[in-house]
């Protein structure tokens, strides 16, 4: 049996004693959990007292009223966020508005319990949180033992796979029900769209395979003298049909010696992703310049495009899994949202670095730096 510490911060004594009474004999136990949880409740009547208890008693869960006599609940939440405390916060408030909800969620609140609540509502919220705490504990434990469990990754992945399936499903139904009438050519557009979505899905699967290789790579690397210029040329050739289709010219410049110790397949993944992005997010008639420079102990790959560019805010999110920049300029562009995340992971595994500079409507430049002899591996 484990005990989770719950702190109730509310200025109404009735709410505090109610929570204590309801949770005193409450237990959460699931077949999939290795242990059962019970609860120890402490109380605070103001935000200030709450913060004091947070410091001394280290609660796992806080039930937080927003409307308090001194500092507000949202300020307590900000305090927890600033201190990066590992506490799950549930807002209890009858004054909840969407503004507060959005603000509190972005500050890390996990859930809301509207006041007044029934014992059952409180219990079911606490039950959900306990499951979350348990999963968090399990994940940390698995990560510590070297096993990576990526719940979030998998759930996003299933969403990314489900969406195109639903779309194609929808189009097939439209065709079966002859929703656009009897003329076959009227269906061309939706057939093209369906093909585009299967293409996107196939790309996602290929990217996933790349990602899996990158993430599970342990000593299976084929490290050899790799001429980066040669790899770049191969990648450009692979992309040629695509660049012709988009009317984008690719230039390659490699002065000096560009041979490094690396796995050529992995280097190709890096070039493929950077160059295909530079074509994809370019303008018709645009250019891509790929330059490989020899530095003292590394080589620097610079891929510059004359495309749509990005804002600082968009650049900040760029290298994460499944992040795709969504705006009016990218609305017809499909992608898995994994490409740059794969590139980043690969580059980092060679103790290299990746940077991006960009200007909206002018274009972007990606700069990858990889040591000639990586000490890692």
């Amino acid at each position, binding site marked *: 049996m484990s005990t989770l510490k719950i702190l109730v911060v509310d200025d109404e004594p009735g709410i505090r004693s109610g929570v204590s009474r309801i949770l005193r004999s409450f237990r959460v136990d699931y077949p999939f959990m290795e242990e059962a949880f019970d609860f120890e409740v402490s109380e605070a009547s103001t935000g200030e007292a709450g913060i004091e208890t947070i410091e001394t008693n280290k609660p796992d869960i806080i039930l937080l009223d927003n409307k308090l006599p001194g500092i507000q609940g949202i300020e307590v939440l900000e305090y927890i966020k600033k201190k990066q405390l590992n506490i799950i916060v549930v807002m209890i408030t009858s004054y*909840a*508005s*969407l*503004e*507060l*909800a*959005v603000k509190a*969620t*972005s500050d890390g609140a996990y859930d*809301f319990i*509207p006041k007044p*609540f029934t014992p059952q509502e409180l219990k079911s919220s606490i039950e*959900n949180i306990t499951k979350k705490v348990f999963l968090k504990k399990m994940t940390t434990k698995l990560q510590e033992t070297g096993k990576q469990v990526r719940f979030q990754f998998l*759930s*996003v992945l*299933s*969403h990314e796979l*489900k*969406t195109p399936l*639903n*779309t194609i499903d*929808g*189009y097939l139904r*439209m065709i079966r029900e002859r*929703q*656009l009438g009897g003329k076959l050519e009227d269906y061309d557009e*939706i057939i093209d*769209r369906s093909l585009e*979505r299967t293409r996107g899905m196939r790309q996602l699967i290929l990217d996933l395979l790349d990602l899996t290789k990158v993430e599970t790579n342990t000593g299976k690397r084929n490290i050899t003298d790799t001429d980066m210029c040669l790899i770049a040329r191969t990648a450009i050739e692979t992309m040629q049909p695509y660049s012709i289709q988009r009317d984008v010219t690719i230039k390659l410049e490699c002065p000096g010696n560009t041979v490094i110790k690396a796995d050529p397949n992995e280097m190709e993944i890096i070039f493929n992703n950077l160059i295909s992005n530079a074509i994809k997010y370019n303008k018709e008639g645009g250019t891509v310049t790929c330059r490989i420079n020899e530095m003292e102990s590394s080589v620097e790959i610079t891929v510059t495009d004359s495309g749509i560019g990005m804002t600082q805010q968009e650049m900040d999110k760029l290298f994460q899994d499944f992040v795709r920049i*969504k*705006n*009016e300029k990218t*609305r*017809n562009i499909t992608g898995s949202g994994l490409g740059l995340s794969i590139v980043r992971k690969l580059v980092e595994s060679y103790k290299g670095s990746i940077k991006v500079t960009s200007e909206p409507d002018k274009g972007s430049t990606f700069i990858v730096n990889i040591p000639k002899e990586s000490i890692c591996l």
Partner: protein
Amino acid sequence: MKPVKPLILIVDDDMDYLYQMKIRLEKFGFDVIQAESQKEAEEIIEKTKPSLAILDLMMENEDSGFILCYKMKKKYADVPIIIATAVAAETGISFDVNDENNRKWIKADCFLEKGIRSDLLKEEIDKLLSKSAS
């Protein structure tokens, strides 16, 4: 005189979903106006008042749908809003909007799964439209 068709605003960043939804709704006999982002939708509602809106939850940002919903209700309190989402199960968002307490802070009138069957969708829309008319 022909009765005026209800105008439905659909907002989603997936152009295929928008297209399919548009066809479905037009088959039901509605007029459709569409937007691909929260921003575009905000521009539309500046000038146009729809009879009902169907919003995606995650667009430019994770909470675009909620914010749009909030802004719409502020401008047109009587226009019913459906939030259509495919992520309910995955993100742990599981509010019951029929619950009086939740209704206070989530301003949507109804949450629907994106894969909903056409006849059920029609039913929900009719229900909301007749409620807002009365």
